[in-house]
């Protein structure tokens, strides 16, 4: 039994081909695994190791470095409240306090129904719109307590327009076979690219 679905196995192979070395696909494949399951399972790491030609310990090493990869299940919606300076100056602590009360969990916790995980996060590059938060890495700006409550109500409806945790970009890059250059391992390339050669020939 393989971890990745047939469609994701095909995607994984397509992704690996884009890189001069397969190991570079490690983080993209961890994202793909998290997209499929909502978190990164041991089975996923073992299969990624095989796909990129390394050990599962190496995959765990990379996986555990990055905060977005969750090695245990989280809520359907991950709410990250920014706590760094600009947001802190504009009331992030109050917002966090309100969120903890509204959700009935402390920062880092998941609601019993598995709907929401609350986290304090670092700067989200929306500093002018403080205090801000992200729901599954989609921004909400200048969030008040009332807006936070309204957001929870909205996310509790069947189709709130935010994909479940694990899904990042909903548009995938597709490099068409007909005009891709392709990625050769660096040791197989020893000459300057042809457009530089051409110029030299002309001069």
């Amino acid at each position, binding site marked *: 039994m393989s971890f990745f679905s047939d469609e994701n196995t095909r995607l994984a192979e397509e992704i690996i081909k*884009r*890189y001069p*070395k397969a*190991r*570079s*696909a490690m*983080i*993209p494949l*961890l994202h793909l695994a998290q997209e499929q399951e909502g978190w990164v399972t041991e089975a996923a790491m073992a299969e990624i190791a095989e796909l*990129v030609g*390394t050990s599962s310990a190496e995959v765990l*090493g990379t996986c555990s*470095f*990055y*905060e*977005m*990869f969750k090695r245990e299940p989280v809520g359907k919606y991950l709410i990250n409240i920014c*706590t*760094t*300076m*600009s947001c*802190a*100056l504009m009331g992030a602590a109050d917002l966090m306090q309100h969120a903890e009360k509204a959700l009935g969990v402390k920062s880092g916790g998941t609601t019993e129904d598995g709907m929401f995980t609350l986290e304090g*996060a*670092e*700067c989200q*590059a*929306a*500093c*002018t*719109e*403080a205090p801000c938060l*992200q729901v*599954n*890495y*989609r921004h909400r*700006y200048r969030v008040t307590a009332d807006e936070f409550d309204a957001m929870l109500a909205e996310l509790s409806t069947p189709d709130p327009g935010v994909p479940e945790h694990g899904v*990042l970009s*909903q*548009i*995938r*890059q597709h*490099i*068409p076979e007909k*005009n*891709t*250059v*392709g*990625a*050769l391992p*660096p040791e197989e*390339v020893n*000459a*300057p*690219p*042809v*457009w*530089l050669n051409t*110029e030299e020939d002309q*001069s």
Partner: protein
Amino acid sequence: MSEMLGTEIAHAAGFIANETPRIVTARFDYEDSFTLERYEITGGYQALRKALQQAPEDVHKEVTNATLLGRGGAGFPAGVKWGFCPPGVWPRYLVVNGDESEPGTYKDRLLMELDPHQLIEGCLIACYAVGLSQCFLYVRGEMAVAQERIARALNDAYEAGYIGRNILGSHFSVDIVLHWGAGAYVVGEETALIESLEGNRGMPRLKPPYFPASIGLYGQPTIVNNVETLSNLPWIIDNGADAFTNIGTETSPGTRMVAVSGHVKRPGVYEIVNGTTTFRDLLYGQDMCGGIRDDNQLKAFVPGGGSAPWFTPDQLDLPFEASQVGPQGSMLGSGAIMVMDETTDIPAAALTLTKFYAHESCGKCVPCREGGTWLEQILRRVVDGRGSRRDLDLLIEVGETICPGDFPHAAVPSKGIEAKPFPYKMTTICFVGPSAFAPIHSALTLFREEFEAKVAGNDDRVLIEVPVNV
């Protein structure tokens, strides 16, 4: 027809237009600014066509002549950086640093979300000029919308023949691969970015070599450029280096994007003239931030992202010019200004930054891993009123293990304190460790009385606490 062109809107989320010449934000007024259609009818990909008519080294020369300073933080001229590739070593790569995460910095995300084709065209121009045979566009993991806009733009540009094999019928061929990060501030450091792109833990590499242009991705020559830097290239090629250097000053030409956040009336992202615009213009100008909220007094501001030593009202008249800001004790960094008004609890504000850098330490260098954690713990107990006077000295002592010698700071004329120039010495590979110390050093130097008030009356013993949240 007007429907197809999209509707004009006043400004995008966070962006505020003013009378400044607009080089990189020119399309932000259009609701469909991110589409290929909009890009093409507003002159998009004309610079690429023009570049392809020239020899690659002439394109490189044009960029060098423009003195385009890197917009990621270090401010190193892009054309000079490109020239560091050792001759005769192939292949060479381009890595785009879209891992924007310096506290207060908010501009690359706008450029990626609102004008992805401009960035893509910039990448293509760089690859053509320097002979880079593959481009990796590394976008911060937490930016789902930027990833979507770039993916769509890349797909459309491939389809239209702007990317891939024999671009626009020429000999120029390059693939651009979109790559997402996964949440680690330190990966914004260019050698850590490369490690991450190789599938590793994102830890900075030992230096030298100082520039990945000599040894980078897979050990090959690699140019790492910031999103805003590359987004300037289409305009420079379209209009020429002279037109670029006619804006701003000789040493800091063109415009730059800055994000002003915190206690101002109109926090926002602005495109300003480089070199001449002053902090006062930006914070108090009626076409910019319009002053401090509630007409309060300005207490302090961080001039160049969370890593930068702080300024006070005494430095308001400094322009966005590195050669003037450096001697006054700070840096322009990533164009992030965080503003604190008179109501701000300074030690608590410093803690919001120190805890950031302590949290983001990758753990490779001991002074940062241990020192950053201790700085946070000690500062936290001072802020909570549990600290002692000795803690204030201890903060400096721990900081000096990360940055030995004089640490840069601003002048305080009223207290007879003179400025110490930027930069600092460091015992770590990268700037994360020093950045944990910078807010503490600034706050303690400029506002020591606020720290003393917090520890007044407490026992002078230092309470040793073993940190638990590592």
